[in-house]
């Protein structure tokens, strides 16, 4: 009781008020630039040019920017390629990571230390852009989407996270399953993975978000424009300010006089943000749950 009243008294102090206001203002500076892009992309094309940078509600409403972006003959295939690479790539990530994490968490594994040291070295040692580029070239993967998919097939960092989740599964369950004649594959897929669902969810999200945001390797390894990804096109468009890919498109012809290219750019950015926004609640649910609750386990 006494502690509760202390807490309450502190809640309404002037210091708390200033602190809360300050932190919310800081959060606003993180959110407003994103919301401004969203608002601008949904605005009426006649009103969006010169829209205030602080505005977070669309000025008028129009889906024209999205209609053009999503029917664009460069952006649409790139979006499709991005989804494809993200889905296939993440599936490979999860498969390899869970299998390796399973093996590495078995108690009587031979050479366990040696393998772990090898993996840690692999994590710390970055050979750099050019040596990796040459390897892709020597492997004959240049130009293929497989280069991007395979070159990040396992991350030691996420492997270690997965191992932590598997270690939490009681050893007796595994032993009795093996005793009953289940093979390792069966044990992994029908017992371990369902028991470590939170871990699978966590690494899936992290892998998928990294895959989705990949632009550099896709930009240098995938040489054909028809094979490239959304982030590469977005980079050309936003960072290098190369609007030719959009202006040259035949779908744009009849709108060219009313279009606001800046708003069109913003619509493309929003399309690139949406998958992250879809995955973000799961990050909060599975990975930062304890942090959000204000308490840590153990």
């Amino acid at each position, binding site marked *: 009781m006494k502690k509760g009243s202390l807490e309450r008294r502190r809640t309404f102090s002037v210091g708390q008020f200033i602190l809360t206001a300050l932190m919310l203002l800081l959060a606003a500076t993180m959110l407003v*630039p994103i919301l401004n892009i969203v608002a601008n992309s949904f605005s009426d094309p006649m009103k969006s040019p010169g829209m205030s940078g602080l505005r977070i509600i669309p000025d008028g409403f129009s889906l024209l920017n999205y209609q053009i972006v999503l029917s664009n003959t460069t952006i649409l295939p790139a979006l499709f390629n991005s989804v494809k690479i993200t889905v296939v790539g993440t599936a490979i990530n999860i498969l390899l990571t869970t299998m390796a994490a399973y093996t590495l968490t078995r108690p009587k594994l031979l050479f366990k230390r040696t393998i772990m040291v090898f993996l840690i070295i692999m994590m710390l040692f970055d050979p750099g852009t050019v040596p990796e580029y040459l390897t892709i070239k020597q492997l004959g993967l240049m130009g293929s989407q497989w280069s991007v998919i395979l*070159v990040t097939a*396992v991350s030691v960092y996420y492997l270690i996270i997965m191992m932590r989740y598997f270690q939490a599964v009681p050893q007796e369950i595994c032993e009795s399953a093996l005793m009953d004649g289940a093979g390792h594959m069966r044990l992994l897929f029908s017992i371990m993975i369902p028991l470590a669902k939170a871990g699978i969810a966590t690494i899936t999200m992290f892998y998928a978000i990294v895959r989705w945001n990949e632009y550099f390797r896709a930009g240098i390894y995938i040489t054909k424009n028809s094979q490239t990804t959304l982030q590469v096109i977005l980079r050309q468009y936003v960072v290098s300010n190369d609007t030719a890919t959009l202006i040259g498109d035949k779908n744009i012809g009849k709108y060219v006089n009313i279009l606001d290219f800046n708003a069109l750019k*913003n619509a493309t950015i929003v399309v690139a943000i949406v998958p992250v926004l879809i995955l973000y609640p799961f990050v909060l649910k599975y990975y930062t749950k304890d942090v959000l609750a204000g308490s840590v386990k153990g």
Partner: protein
Amino acid sequence: MLDRKNRAPVLDMGGPTLSERVRRNLHTLRLDWVLYAMLLPTIVFFVIFRVWPIWNMRLAFFTYKAKTAWEWAGLKYFQQIFATPQFGNILKNTLIISFMKYVLLFPFFVIFAILLSEMRMHRCRKVVQVISYLPHFLGWVVIAGIWINFLSYDGAVSEILSWFGVSPSNHMTNRNSIRWILFLSEGWRSMGWDSIIYYTTIIGISPSLYEAAEMDGATRLQVIRHIVLPALLAPMSTMFILNLGYFMSAGFDQVLNFSNAAVQNTIDILDTYIYRVGIQNGQYSLASAVGLFKGVVGMVLVLCTHVTSKKLTGEGVW
């Protein structure tokens, strides 16, 4: 199997011999081959996509030949690097940008975590957390898009500055502010996420410590100074040493996407130089030499700090 069991007591007299150990290991491997096969794809992956590139790093000492074997060049490419007039500028930029991002920005993450933990209104605190962790998950291309818009001639920053009588301009092309833009955008992206490690340390501090301090009539500032900060020292030193590992990199993805012709000289770093020279101009050997130089200096930095930290505070990374 039976035979092995029968012989076991005899062998145990002097412990297993080498050949016995090898045979026993082979036996386990044969029995449990599925288990080891599950690890195999990962090992093969690392050998092909990490060990092979590491082996390719030797190109720094060779001249690249596409069809035939590479030609030994000795230290030629390293001499070439140090003879390049802009190299000094690039190295300086790298160190300045890293210093701003990894030393100047660093305390703000700690302050953010402390302020967050001091918030008593739980719902507000959660709102701040949910918003501040989000930018970490956006790719640098998207962040560059957001910031270019934010800092443009008619963007939010120009508008706010105009309230104070500053005439609007495109800040992204201003060479005097671009490094601070890198500093701020890094903070914008990482403030929430990078403060998590400090935040979890703070909420892990035993409540009895706080209660004792309260009993003694300590103010909030005294509590932070004498209880919270000492607890944060360990994660701070670990993060600081790990940051030094990135010191020679300075954040390639960010710099590449925030760069434009007007400011390129001010923020050209080692990695953007490697990209330009190696990938765009095809001078593989020269770029590999810069990469090797970068890697070795980075590693020496981390080792030195680790050893110093261990001597001074007893805390290192490992």
